[in-house]
């Protein structure tokens, strides 16, 4: 029995993983630095398949990194920068201690900095990779751009975030790539389709934040550092893909030039530049003057695998998309003071509408309230003083619902002081068996082009419905009556039987003609099938049975939930109707 004894945990999966502490020691970094490095380089722990094997037989909860990842970190130039920074801090402290102010100044001037360009390139080797991962970056930048410029993080970061988000919004407007908008209680969700990637981001409502205590802003700041770099490069690339100048410049000879007088109100040109840009009201300057704005008609290459139906469907979708892009074209909006200006301006401009606002709200308003050509005024207050006859006064939800429905919805439901119809999430795609809210069904009908009657008709319909319902109730009653009748008959029979029994005791045997039992063939067949299935289920293997039970449980739960929602809706509608009736009486 020669040969060396094989030692445990020296080969196999145990050698592929490394615990966090060991990784930290290997890199000779402090925990905050290690955290930073992991965030910047996108290194995350991996869950080993067999924890016990990796954890040397113990089951203690530990986080494991791939050893290869950590080795890869060893050669990262940023690690060197971290060390430099550590030394810099030490020197600075020393200089402070000795009150050598010139040394402090000199050190401060030479504060080590690092760039993240190579990391971005390494993490996202292609542009599409970067686009795919940009959701979080956008969310974070939009959040940081709303922070107050005190404490919490550097003012430069906030400004940079603001600049990048404004650039992004301008790009989305220029490329008209916004697809869906959703007003949630958390914030406003936007979804854009950029180069075939669906990108979703959420913007908080414009309020000051009460900063929670249990949030580590260092972690967030590190992420933001990475995200701003990423977003900047992505923006550059996107702008150049549209032949736009980067950093963006306002189109000087555009038609919708903001008024010149307003500029005098602002102190500096450089300051007002970003604000004007963030007003989102003007188009951007192009490198090549907008020559080929119109996209060339796409040639179609019918592949053999695809049948005509699919092609047609795709074509239709494309057409629909094009139509959506021009949803608000030709409409002129005016935003009242109390509506969220930035969001609305962004949405309107994304779909080709013209928008303006009160001069006191923001720079960049292009026309006044008094403009007679305004078609819609967005308003969010119970009443308004002076109304113009030739425009609609509508609540902001109309715009968002139109975008999601991809058509211009009837404005009646959104007038001033009207109870708004529910705002539905455009991100929910109902599958078969899921609960679909009635509003969605209505919208889908509208999309198909079915025209609902105007309100009077609706009322009538409602009344009719009510009538029908009453009829139904009557029918139900009738049914009940029938049931009752049946019951009565049965009881009679029973009585007879009892009588017969009692008679039987006295040996009066009577033979009553049997009733022919009508057998429902289809139902019988169904029952048979169900039983067959039940019996077959009995014969399933244990493992498969478990899986099957799990799947069925999930399905049943889904159905239950859908039913619950439907029941809730029905109860609500009924109570509403009752209220209405009472009010009428």
């Amino acid at each position, binding site marked *: 029995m020669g040969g060396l004894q094989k030692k445990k945990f020296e080969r196999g999966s145990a050698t592929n993983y490394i615990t966090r502490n060991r990784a930290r020691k290997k890199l000779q970094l402090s925990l905050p630095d290690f955290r930073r490095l992991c*965030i910047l380089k996108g290194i*995350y*722990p*991996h*869950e080993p*398949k067999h924890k016990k094997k990796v954890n040397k037989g113990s089951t203690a909860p530990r*986080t494991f990194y*791939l050893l*290869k*990842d950590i080795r890869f970190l060893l050669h990262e130039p940023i690690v060197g920068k971290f060390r430099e920074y550590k030394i810099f801090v030490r020197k600075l402290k020393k200089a402070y201690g000795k009150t050598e102010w010139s040394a402090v100044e000199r050190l401060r001037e030479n504060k080590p900095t690092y760039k993240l*360009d190579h990391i*971005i*390139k*390494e993490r996202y*080797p*292609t542009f599409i990779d970067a686009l*795919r*991962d940009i*959701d*979080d970056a956008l*969310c974070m930048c939009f*959040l940081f751009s709303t922070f107050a410029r005190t404490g919490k993080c550097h003012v430069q970061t906030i400004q940079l975030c603001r600049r990048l988000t404004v650039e992004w919004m301008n790009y989305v407007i220029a490329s008209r790539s916004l697809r869906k908008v959703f*007003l*949630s*209680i*958390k914030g406003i*969700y936007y979804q854009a389709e950029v180069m075939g990637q669906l990108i979703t981001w959420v913007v*908080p*409502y414009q309020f000051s*934040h009460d900063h*929670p205590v249990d*949030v580590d802003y260092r*972690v*967030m700041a590190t992420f933001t550092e990475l995200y701003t770099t990423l977003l900047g*490069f992505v*923006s*550059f*690339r996107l702008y150049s893909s549209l032949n736009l100048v980067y950093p963006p410049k306002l189109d000087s000879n555009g038609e919708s030039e903001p008024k010149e007088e307003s500029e005098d109100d602002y102190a500096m040109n450089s300051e007002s530049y970003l604000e004007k840009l963030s007003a989102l009201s003007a188009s951007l300057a192009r490198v090549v003057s907008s020559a080929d704005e119109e996209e060339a008609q796409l040639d179609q290459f019918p592949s053999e695998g695809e049948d005509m139906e699919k092609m047609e469907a795709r074509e239709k979708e494309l057409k629909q998309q094009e139509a959506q892009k021009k949803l608000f074209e030709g409409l002129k909006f005016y935003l009242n003071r109390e*509506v969220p200006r930035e969001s609305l301006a962004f949405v309107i401009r994304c779909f080709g509408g013209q928008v303006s606002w009160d001069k006191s709200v923001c720079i960049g308003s292009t026309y006044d309230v008094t403009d007679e050509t305004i078609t819609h005024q967005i308003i*969010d*207050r119970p009443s308004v003083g002076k109304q113009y006859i030739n425009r609609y006064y509508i609540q902001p*939800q109309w715009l968002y619902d139109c975008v999601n429905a991809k058509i211009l919805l009837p404005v009646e439901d959104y007038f001033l002081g009207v109870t*708004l119809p*529910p*705002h539905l*999430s455009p991100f*929910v795609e109902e599958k078969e068996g899921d609960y679909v*809210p009635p*509003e969605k069904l209505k919208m889908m009908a509208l999309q198909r082009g079915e025209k609902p009657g105007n309100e009077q008709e609706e009322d009538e319909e409602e009344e009719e419905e009510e009538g029908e319902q009453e009829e139904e109730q009557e029918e139900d009653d009738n049914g009940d009556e029938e049931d009752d009748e049946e019951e009565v008959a049965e009881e009679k029979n029973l009585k007879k039987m009892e009588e017969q029994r009692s008679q039987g005791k006295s040996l009066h045997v009577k033979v009553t003609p049997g009733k022919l039992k009508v057998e429902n063939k289809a139902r019988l067949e169904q029952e048979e099938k169900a*039983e*067959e299935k039940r*019996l*077959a289920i*009995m*014969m399933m293997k244990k493992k498969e049975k478990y899986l*099957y039970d799990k*799947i069925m449980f999930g*399905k049943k739960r889904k159905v239950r939930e859908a039913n619950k929602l439907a029941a809730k*809706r029905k109860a*609500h509608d009924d109570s509403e109707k009752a209220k209405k009736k009472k009010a009428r009486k």
Partner: protein
Amino acid sequence: MERALQQIFNFNRKPADEDKDDDLSDSEDSVYSGLEDSGSDSEEEEGSDDDEEEGSDDNDDKMKEKKEGEVSEEKKKHEYEHDSSDEEDIRNTVGNIPMEWYKDFPHIGYNLDGKKIYKPIRNKDELDDFLDKMENPEYWRTVHDKQTGSDVVLSDDQVELVNRLQRGQFGDVNFNECEPMVEFFSSDVMIHPVTNRPADKRSFIPSLTEKEKVSKLVHAIKMGWIKPRRVEDDGRGRYYNLWASEDSSILARHKMHLPAPKIPLPGHHESYNPPPEYLFTDEERALWEQQDPADRKLPFVPRKYSSLRQVPAFSQFIHERFERCLDLYLCPRQRKMRVNVNPEDLIPQLPKPKDLQPFPTTRSLVYRGHSGLVRSISVSPSGQWLASGSDDGSVRFWEVCSSRCMKTVQVGGAVKSVAWNPNPSVCLLAVALDSVVLILSPSLADKQVILSSERLLSAQQEGEEPAEGNGSVVWSEAEGEELNQGLRLKIQHPKAVHQVVWHAKGDYLASVMPDNTSHLQVYIHQLSRRRSQNPFSRNKGLVQCISFHPIRPYFFVATQRSIRIYNLVKQEMTKKLQTNSKWISSMAVHPGGDHVICGSYDCKLSWFDLDLSTKPYKMLRHHKKAVRGVAYHRLYPLFASASDDGSVIVCHGTVYNDLLQNPLIVPVKVLRGHVMTHDLGVLDVTFHPTQPWVFSSGADATICLFT
């Protein structure tokens, strides 16, 4: 500084002003002209022009101020005439002492003669004071002088002074705060310099210490300890086309890369104005609040706002972002394969039960009569009679087709087991109760058969009395009343008997006395010779049930967890079947003899193929509760299991002659007909010997026939 200096200057100048009768402007000029003359210093040639201009400006200002100053100085002179240090305006001579020392005295001090100076009579109380305040127009400018104790009315000038001081201005109205500074020490060389020392030598030779410092710095720069001032590089916010040269080569690391899942998109719940059904009811809300935050389905409460302007900020927004950040860098990732299985595909494809007929489908007859739960049933080999033993202490004989109870035998004890002799030429029934096995001759057959059975029972009477060595089993004949009922033989056992089974030939029968402690658990009795023997000398566990092989001389013994098969001829164990169940309840042997099914209290039914393995070929878990009885059909490929859940499940089980083909097992029917009583359902099940009928006896004291 400037102001202070000016003041000093002014004060210094005052005596001079008094002395001089000339115009003051001359002297001023002279001072400044001197400054101007010496303005051309070698070091500050550039700044000199400016200085001149400033100087001339200053002069102009001075001229104006001086004119004003003259007026004021005239006043001052007037004042000074009265003012001398000797002639102080002393109102009394008490001196500068705290006046509260005299608070309680009528006087406020003493004069030079040592006489008391009395306070002015002051009979004002608070009311007078108040009235004074209200009526006296001068009240506001009246001040109480503590030193003299008298009230002083301030004059307009004095009030003005107080106001000025309160405003932080100088007391003197004419005082100019902004007079230009006169520079005594300047870079300009004056005609009459303040100091006239020649320059030091050290100001001409280069400084050694400085040189040392410089060389140190140079050395540090050379060594790279000090870096030259960094060029202000605005690295942030400088972007370029990073992906100008896209190389499609994927790094090895990227193969292992698991991209983070995206944040789930919001549903209707999250809308600021959701449909009403998505809002919480009060109960749901209470439930949500009670739940642990980790268990909640929704991390927030859906809210409805009637308009957009009423939507407040979401307080958890930063939190959620932060959580996402933590997830991104801290959460271990693992690739999980999610298989999308169609549940229909999981169901095995079995032959249709319709094609496997005949099998019992409906309950056609119910045999009522027992008053206790029916533990055991048995069908006569002819298929005409059914015997049942119940806890009410009776054995009943039923005609199968008419469900009539033909005979009732009171045996005086709860019947554990009944077994009909399988030999069709005799008509005997073995009944196990307490510790006795009774042999009954129910006389429900042809005369011939009855006679032959009587013969069989009486055959050994002629022989010797059983001379068994152990003597623990006693054979005795029934007498008197019992004989009339049909009782023939009593086999007294040492312990309670649980089960009795016949050999296929009908001469031997075996009985079980479950006992964990001794090896006397199984007895094999020979009827013709009235002999009993205990085949096992060792205790191998609690025996649950036993069975004879239908053809060959094998004997099956089921203990708690395994089944042992003994060869009775060779007197050795041939096989041990592992059932993988916790507690075997019943067992049945296939008429072919190569297959065994056994039911267990842990709801399992296992099918053994003896040729295949000692492990179950198939485990069926289709019962919800303990399996109580199992049975094979003698002719048809059917077997049935009875369970405490009140159901009898009939399965099709074809056994192929071809050894390579495994038996086909298909459940074909679930039969229900018994009522659950005391948590017990069906206790025994048995097939009709010739028809595809199945009998079941239940805890509800009935027996059912399913056809």
